[in-house]
């Protein structure tokens, strides 16, 4: 766990990425934005020592959230990944949470929910 404030946001929705960047920067985080899982995993690979946590959307083109989660966990078993989703298939979120996802943000979530989720208090 680094002490950096770098968060990796992976979401295919432009507006959400930008709003999250703005919100997170207000909250004092540095943000790397990725439009899909593939980019996200690449970015995580490139910056994994600095990345404090990942905000990962579930439904995306090219590489879906769960796939990207797997890759990220493979790269860093201790990676802090918060799942974001407006809709997910049966039991998928539960599964990821069991496999080590740090939190779940149900869209539409508030800034308060977001803030609580990315504090990453040690378990």
């Amino acid at each position, binding site marked *: 766990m680094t002490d950096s404030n770098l968060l990796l946001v992976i979401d295919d*929705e432009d*507006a*959400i990425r930008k*709003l*999250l960047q*703005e*919100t997170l920067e*207000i909250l004092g985080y540095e943000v790397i934005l990725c439009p899909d899982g593939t980019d996200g995993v690449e970015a995580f690979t490139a910056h994994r020592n600095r990345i404090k946590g990942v905000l990962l959307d579930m*439904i995306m083109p090219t590489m879906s959230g769960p796939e990207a989660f797997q890759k990220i966990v493979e790269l860093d078993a201790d990676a802090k990944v918060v799942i974001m*989703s*407006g*809709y997910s*298939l*049966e039991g998928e979120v539960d599964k990821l949470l069991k496999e080590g996802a740090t939190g779940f943000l*149900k*869209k*539409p*979530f*508030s*800034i308060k929910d977001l803030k609580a989720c990315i504090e990453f208090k040690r378990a």
Partner: protein
Amino acid sequence: MPILLRRCVVIFVTAVAYFCVGKLSLLMAIPPGYSVPVWPAAGIAFVMVLLYGPSAALGVFLGSTLMNMSVSYNPDHPETFSSSLQVGACIGFGAGLQALAGLALARARGCWPSRLVRFPRIMNFMILSGPVACLINSILGVTTLVVFGKVNPENFFDQWRSWWVGDSIGVMLVAPMLLPFLAAPREVWRGRIMTVALPAAVILSMTIWVFKWVSDSETQLIQEQMEDEFSKVVDKVEEGFSHHVSILTALDSFFHASEFVSKQEFSQFCNQFYNQLTPLGIKTIEWAPVVRHKDLDAFLALAREEGYDEFQITEKNDAGDLVPAAAREEYVPIFYAEPLVGNESAIGYDLISEAVRRETINKAWSTGELTLTPRLKLVQGTGLRFAYIAVLPHESRTRRTEEEQIRSGNGYLLMVFYPNLWLTNSMQNSELPRDSEVHVIDERYDEELYEFVPVTINANLFRSTHSVQVGDRSWRFEFSCPLQAPPGSLRSEWIMIGGLLFASLCSLLMMTATGTLHATRELVAQRTAALNETTHFLDNIIENIPHTIFVKDGKSLRYLSFNRAGSELLGVPSEAMIGKSDYDLFPKEQADAFTAKDREVLDSRVPSVIEREKVSTRDKGVRIVTTIKIPILSESGEPIQLLGIAEDITEKLRLEEISSRSETLNAVGLLAGGIAHNLNNGLQVIRNSLELIGLRLEGVPDETKQRVDRLSETAQDTIDNASGLIRNLLEFAKGKIGEPVAFDAHNILLKTSVMLRGFLPASIQHELSLQAEQSQLLGDPHSLETSILNLAVNARDAMSGAGKLRIATWNEEEYLVISVHDTGKGIPEEVRKQLFTPFFTTKGKFGTGLGLASTYGIVKAFSGEISVQSTVNEYTEFQIKLPVYYESDPADKGQTQ
């Protein structure tokens, strides 16, 4: 039983049966002698050998040998034993051989072992074992009898024929009578006791009875004929004797009429009878005058005058030689004898000199009647024959002088005759049967005068005795004669043979008839079994087909047949359906429709399918069926019956409905997923933007900031609502509720009830009736609560402010039923159909159209069912039927999809 012992028993039984039956058969003998019309023992021999094997032939041999010995052996003549044994053994051997031949022939031609059901085989069996096999002993037996001199060779053919016929009929009669009792297989033969054996026995008894009757009457007739012949003989003898008498009487008259009868006159007189003398056995006619001693000289002078040169009165001395008679007071010398030749020595013989003659003449004199001497050996006799002398006293009526007295005095007219000759003559000229035995006995002296004994001695003799008065004697005629009719004249024989043939033919026919019957029965049984199997098979199919199958009469349209499925559908037993019409079973308008369709199908002769027809049933309410009605046509093309096949599609329709609903749900699910994803993303953007706007309002006047915040809050609330809607939609679409847990539905209902009190107006009564004993369920309690609330809210809306809401539970089998009943406006039928369809709502913009759809999904998640009943303006009742959960039940009944 050891085989040896068994064989011994068979041999013994066979021997005894053969012997006894043979002996009995002899009672039926046709006269004369041994000839028997039927010989059942031959049949017994054959049957025993047939059924118990060749060893029975030994029994036949023993039985036959003993039987034949007992016939020919005469205990009075022990010397006949040896020949009887030989004859018996030969015939016995033939009988055994014949039975074996019958068996061999029957086997060779495949007639045995057999059930004998087909005519050709029965015929072969009968002919081979009867006429063919019986050639053996008829030839062997008669040959034996001829060789041993028991049968005249010229009678060989007759004897053979009667033997052969008797044995053949015996076999053909006895085999059908015995086999039904003894032969196997019993199921074939047992039935023939009444149909073959009994009729044969009856015909046989009747034949024997008729035979006996005719035979007796014939015997009587023959006896009468014989008696007639005997009487004729006797009459003839009597007539002959009256000739004897008349000759002597005529002489007597002649002597009376004449002063003196000279020797010549005597001779002349007698000669007129000359021709009659020999047939009557008359040897000599004599005249013996009574001569007193004092007249002796005059008498001797008279003798010389008559031509007797050396006449002297003689007598026999002790040595039997003729000597001059001693002087005595009276003499009765034979004076005339006709014919004289051969009788010369008798002339002068003094009848008084000998005791027997003296007694006779004295008796004759004292009685004045014709008197016979006992049997005599004659003075002049040479042969061994005995003779009789008939003596007629002659008393002179005119005696005036001594001389006259000498010349025509008292005396005796004598007639010497040989009864043997006379009787033989009489017999020979009669029509007595050749082999008649005749004895003639002088009863006074018990002397046999005549006898005729034929060469052959027969049994079964007819005896008759007659008496004839001959002078002072009574002669007894004893006739015995075999009862014999001229060949071919006996009706009884033909009756017997005819009857027996008839009996055996009847047996043959009855065997054939019963055989054919049995074969036919077997065939019928086989076919029936096959048919039953087929029928059973078809019945089974028809009974087990889950569709109603019925047949109606083409005219009356009354039910002829109704299968189980139909009976179960209508709730009426199949039997009760038969003969009923649709009007007996259904409401009039249904019956009218059915009947009209029936008629249409029958008239058009074309099958027709009637889709989705309503049928009222007893137990299941109104059901929907699809029926195929098929006209069944006669050969001439006339519709005779109507076949109906009806499928109860009520359940199918319901399932289709459910299935289409599920498909809708699936589609909605997919759609909802897409919508939720995009919508939530959109809402995320809006919310985040709004929040950022709030954060960016630094330096804006407070009033403005407050206004923006209020707007933002409103927007945030709307976002929450929209998000809730999406969540509901997703929950519904996924049908997914929380993790299944075991819980008591009653607790949930109590909780719901409390909540309901909060939002039901006071004008709506609320009743909770928890009757179920088993209320444990497995599933998501929260979703159940949601469902009940959903239904309750619907109920409230339906009652528009006033009414009664009743929530009740009860158990139905393994299910818990939760009923939500309201007294609202009800749900029209067309609405009921779409009730559980997502997005269908009657509440306009106030309804999501997902309430009942999600309730439906929740109930399904519990593996339960939901149904609705309603009458417009009266009530609506939803029933949720959920499987009760038992803790011990390992099956995870609440597992959700």
